[in-house]
């Protein structure tokens, strides 16, 4: 079965750009049909890893396997890896329909479907990405979100066994981003193609990925389900990078794990002074300055609780922590 989605294994792969180690001994296994996010700050190697899987770059050492076969022997043309580029790289002089049909129309004659069949499949894909009626337009005449979906339809036309997306929502404004990422998740649930996407936005990764691969300085810090990565970060880096966190001495505390009382109630607590209160939002946010160490603490609490406390900037408060994490340095 040539077009079944495939599993991908990255085994001890390293890659340098000059003296800069972009990837340092990275190993990773992607299961068939998974939606995986490569998450990390810029320079963490996430895009390099994606390009290696797609065959756009070559690693210096280590190997990549597609369903157990060494990818070094599979050329970029034969890889059937649908790649969606960060800026889409749509062919500017071709209509939307021609762009989507490109992968089918460049097949060797023996494997190329007839012209009418190519057009039918391209239209079908445009329907799948909800872009009917723009077939004749040029990419320049589309909005960012539409271009993104054309790029996706174009990549899907080659019946990819793996879909690779480089910052798929990076160039879009916040509202479109949110809509498109939910839509992508739904599309993935229908198609079940093994999909890897690169992002620096932790919210994006946590919301739609089955598993998140957190990367930093060319290494993988942690691999896990979104909740696992959030609740049980494997390192100080992951804890800092995913969600907000307070650092008090060597301890890491999530803002929602900070408990605030206006009176000392016998339990051990730290003295603090309220600096800032923001109640515009789903939860109330409060900044507190710890007495003694002078460290600033961010807290999140239900708005009902905030109303009960009725604390104003300058008021004295007492804090304790529901959950504290420490990492070996």
């Amino acid at each position, binding site marked *: 079965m040539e077009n079944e989605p495939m599993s991908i294994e990255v085994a001890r792969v390293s890659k340098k750009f000059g003296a800069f180690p972009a990837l340092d001994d990275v190993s990773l296994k992607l299961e068939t049909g998974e939606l995986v996010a490569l998450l990390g700050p810029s320079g963490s190697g996430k895009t390099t890893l994606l390009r290696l899987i797609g065959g*756009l770059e070559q690693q210096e050492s280590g190997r990549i396997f597609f369903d157990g076969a060494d990818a070094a022997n599979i050329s970029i043309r034969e890889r059937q890896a649908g790649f969606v580029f960060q800026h889409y*790289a749509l062919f500017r002089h071709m209509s939307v329909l021609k762009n989507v049909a490109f992968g089918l129309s460049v097949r060797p004659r023996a494997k190329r479907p007839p012209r009418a069949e190519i057009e039918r499949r391209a239209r079908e894909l445009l329907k799948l990405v909800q872009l009917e009626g723009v077939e004749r337009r040029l990419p320049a005449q589309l909005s960012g979100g539409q271009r993104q979906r054309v790029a996706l339809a174009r990549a899907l036309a*080659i019946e990819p066994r793996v879909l690779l997306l480089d910052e798929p929502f990076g160039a879009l404004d916040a509202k479109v981003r949110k809509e498109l990422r939910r839509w992508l998740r739904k599309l993935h649930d229908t198609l079940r193609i093994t999909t890897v996407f690169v992002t620096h936005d932790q919210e994006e990764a946590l919301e739609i990925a089955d598993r998140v691969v957190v990367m930093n300085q060319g290494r993988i810090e942690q691999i896990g389900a979104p909740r696992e990565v959030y609740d049980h970060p494997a390192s100080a880096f992951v804890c800092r990078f995913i969600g907000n966190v307070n650092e008090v001495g060597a301890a890491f505390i999530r803002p929602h794990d900070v408990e605030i009382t206006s009176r000392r109630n016998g339990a051990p607590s730290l003295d603090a002074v309220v600096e800032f209160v923001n109640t515009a939002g789903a939860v109330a946010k409060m900044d507190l300055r710890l007495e003694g160490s002078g460290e600033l603490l961010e807290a999140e609490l239900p708005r009902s609780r905030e109303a009960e406390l009725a604390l104003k900037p300058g008021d004295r408060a007492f804090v304790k922590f529901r959950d504290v994490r420490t990492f070996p340095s």
Partner: protein
Amino acid sequence: MRKKEVLPGFGLSLGYTIFYLSLIVLLPLSAAFFKAGELTWPRFLAAVTSPRVLASFRLSFGAALGAALLNAVFGLLVAWVLVRYRFFGKRLVDALVDLPFALPTSVAGIALTAVYARNGWIGRLLEPHGIKVAFTPLGVMVALTFIGLPFVVRTVQPILEDLDADFERAAATLGASRWQTFVRVIFPEIAPALLTGFALAFARGLGEYGSVVFISGNMPMRTEIIPLLIITKLEQYDYRGATAIAVAMLAASLALLLLINTLQRWTAARSAA
């Protein structure tokens, strides 16, 4: 319909543009038309359709066209190499491209003649195969190719530099071969610039005089280009005959350049981003 522009003074700048073009381009050209107007229509026709004139028209337009086509192909190649590869001496090669601009054309003509003459470096090698370059129409084309090279390279180069490599990568991931990628993805992107370069090289070839007169041998009916024929007529004090040929050449050149410009605009509109 006039819109508010960032820079004021549309009227002034347009007026200046028209005045400038009139003074520099149109005035001298119209003088040629007036001079030719002294001829009656039958005599004008006779002057521009004599066998010798027609032969030189064929040579000038044919050689300029051939040279421009050759430059379009190989100039594109040179531009590609200069943009895509890093190699030792690249800056020198890049500078060499401009040399035909800087060199006095007569120097180019003498040098080319020396190289392509029967006992020259290249002429000696071609002679046994029955290929003669110097003092033949082929020699005219060689000179015009030399003169026109920078136009194609310098118009295509910046476009290639700006061309995102992701276009090629995208084509490759979609299964396109290198040839398919070039023909269907890269070429349409650079076609408008290539056409511009082609038009410039062609126009330059039509008007070129200095480098050609040495290598062509200037034999009437065989290797005589239009600019030379005009000079010859002038030297014989046949001012009307000379301007008649000039006017015919102007009209033909203008028509061809308009055609190429239209084609260029059409391809540019198709690939507009």
